[in-house]
């Protein structure tokens, strides 16, 4: 399909800089999630790719060609708006066929494609209704159908699942994923939900304050964030300042631990170490393993029970959060020993 590339793209609104500089390289047929807090510039980025907004600097390339002179209408992109932007004066049918009607396609083809897409999004029953007579999820599906029917080569979705309940959200996620795989459309998907981004995307671009913070596969972002901000945003809880005493040893306030050596980090460097809460093993003091690496002893300070899983806060010089399956429950106040494999410790330069 189409490969999308942003080259040092910047966007200013008057004196306000919404996007500082973003480089993105989205492969053909890839599903990329733009992830970031509210106001970081996700929608603005999509709007520049769609051509609704012209970059102040830099260029947008489709398959290697600069599209700055290509009108919105000619870019053959699709966009599902954050607030749907359905045409309130048209029925579901009319909304969905709008893109084909304005292209002047033969009536027969339009009605065939309409039936096909209504089937896919399961809106057959609602075809004669107006947007005001639909629920949020139904409107969403109309917005998606209206876009997909035009067979765009780049599909953009601005938080398409934001207004749905949990169950419908799951359904729509699978629906979007299947469809995207089946049609192989290059898709850019905006969300500020990291779980959604990780579940759906081939790669995730994290944006903070109009800057690309990190761009990579979900597990890379989750396990190997390149900054504490990204780690924080991806839901990491245990980030502690430390000092490298050797390439593979870090001194922390809960003792010196073995870590994986990482290129670019040298002994003497001030760093952060990140311990994923599910990567830590927790033992009651009496059952502590002998001779294991990175043993940290402490005391349970708090417990949060989530049903299938349970989270403990262990006081050990720092407060360390540990998550495990709730096959057993330890009590607050109980002395425990933590153990973490060196390859589960990630180091971030400070």
């Amino acid at each position, binding site marked *: 399909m189409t490969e999308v590339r942003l080259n040092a793209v910047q966007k200013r609104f008057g004196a306000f800089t919404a996007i500082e500089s973003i480089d993105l390289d989205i492969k053909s047929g890839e599903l990329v999630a733009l992830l970031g807090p509210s106001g970081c510039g996700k929608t603005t980025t999509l709007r520049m790719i*769609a051509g*609704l907004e012209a970059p102040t600097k830099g260029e947008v390339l489709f398959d290697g060609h600069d599209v700055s002179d290509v009108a*919105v*209408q000619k*870019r053959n*992109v*699709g*966009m599902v*708006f954050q*607030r749907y*932007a*359905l*045409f*309130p*004066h*048209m*029925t579901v049918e009319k909304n969905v066929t*709008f*893109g084909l009607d*304005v*292209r002047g396609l033969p009536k027969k083809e339009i009605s065939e494609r309409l039936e096909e897409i209504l089937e896919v999004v399961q809106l057959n029953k609602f075809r004669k*209704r*107006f947007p*005001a*007579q639909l629920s949020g999820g139904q409107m969403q599906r109309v917005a998606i159908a*209206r*876009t997909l029917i*035009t067979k765009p080569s780049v599909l953009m979705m601005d938080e398409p699942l934001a207004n749905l309940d949990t169950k419908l959200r799951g359904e729509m996620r699978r629906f979007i994923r299947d469809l995207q795989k089946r049609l192989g459309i290059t898709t850019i998907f905006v969300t500020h939900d990291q779980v959604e981004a990780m579940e759906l995307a081939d790669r995730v671009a994290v944006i903070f304050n109009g800057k690309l913070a990190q761009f990579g596969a979900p597990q890379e972002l989750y396990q190997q964030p390149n900054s504490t901000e990204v780690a924080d945003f991806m839901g990491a809880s245990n980030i502690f300042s430390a000092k490298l005493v050797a390439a593979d040893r870090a001194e922390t306030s809960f003792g010196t631990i073995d870590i994986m050596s990482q290129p670019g980090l040298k002994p003497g460097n001030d760093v952060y170490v990140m311990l994923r809460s599910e990567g830590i093993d927790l033992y009651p003091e009496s059952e502590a393993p002998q001779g294991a690496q990175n043993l940290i002893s402490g005391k349970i300070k708090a417990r949060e029970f989530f049903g299938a899983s349970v989270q403990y806060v262990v006081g050990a010089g720092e407060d360390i959060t540990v998550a495990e399956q709730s096959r057993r429950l330890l009590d607050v106040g109980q002395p425990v020993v933590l153990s973490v494999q060196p390859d589960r410790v990630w180091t971030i330069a400070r």
Partner: protein
Amino acid sequence: MARSHDSALKERMWLWLQLSPVLLILAVLFGGALVLAVVQSLGFAPWFGVNTFPSFQYFGALWGSVSFWQSLWLTLYYATVSTVIALVMGIALALALVRTFPGKHLYKYVYKLPLMIPYTVGIALAVIMLGNGGMISRLASFFGFISDPSHFPQILKTHAGWGIIAVYVWKQVPFITLAIYAVMLGIGRETEEAAAILGANRWQILSQVTLPQIMPGVVSSTLICFAFNVGAFEAPFILGGGFPDTLPVVAWRYFNDADYTLQLQGMATVVSIALVAGIILFSYLAIYRRFERKIGRN
């Protein structure tokens, strides 16, 4: 049973009693004047020593003359043409105002200026600018488009009425713009953007997406302007082409006649204006209702 019926009745009476001040004002302001006009036009004016009520002789005399129909045509022609021109310009302006362009801030104030200037000043301006020997004709001759200001085409005091239309348009464009601009702000630009992404060109976006959504603003503002233009007096009186005049001017001439019994003829004229305007406005609203139902508003 009887008791509850009784108390329901009491309640309703109390409700009417509470409403009565408002109803009284409505009746006096709107109903009273209209009833008086209708009654007089049907020959009831004992204070002039005329009482042939009910008689349709005044309507008969009025509607039987060719000049009435010429006047009606002129009235509707000025009102319609100026409303349509003002509407087209108003939509264009409102479309411009929802976009960003240099000098927009200043412009947003300037375009409202005619709203604050009285009609009579507008009419005076038209005389100064558009007359033979007016500013524009002098400029045209100065720049050599015409050899002498008096060769400037006649704009004022013709039955084509471009002077009248110019004044109406000048005064009403800001009003229509304001009404439509407000509706556009409420709608936002996203549906237009969505349409563009879906491949619609400018014209398709305007006709299929923007216009249907701004119809409430279009209808309400043109309704008011049209109704005003049908009943307006000063502009056609000063800038019009003389006999046949527009209906309000005709009515005024009757009222002003030395023969005061002609006032009844004037009342018949006024009632005719109200009838015509009423029929047109009601049909307009009925058509709009049908359109609204078609786009799913109930």
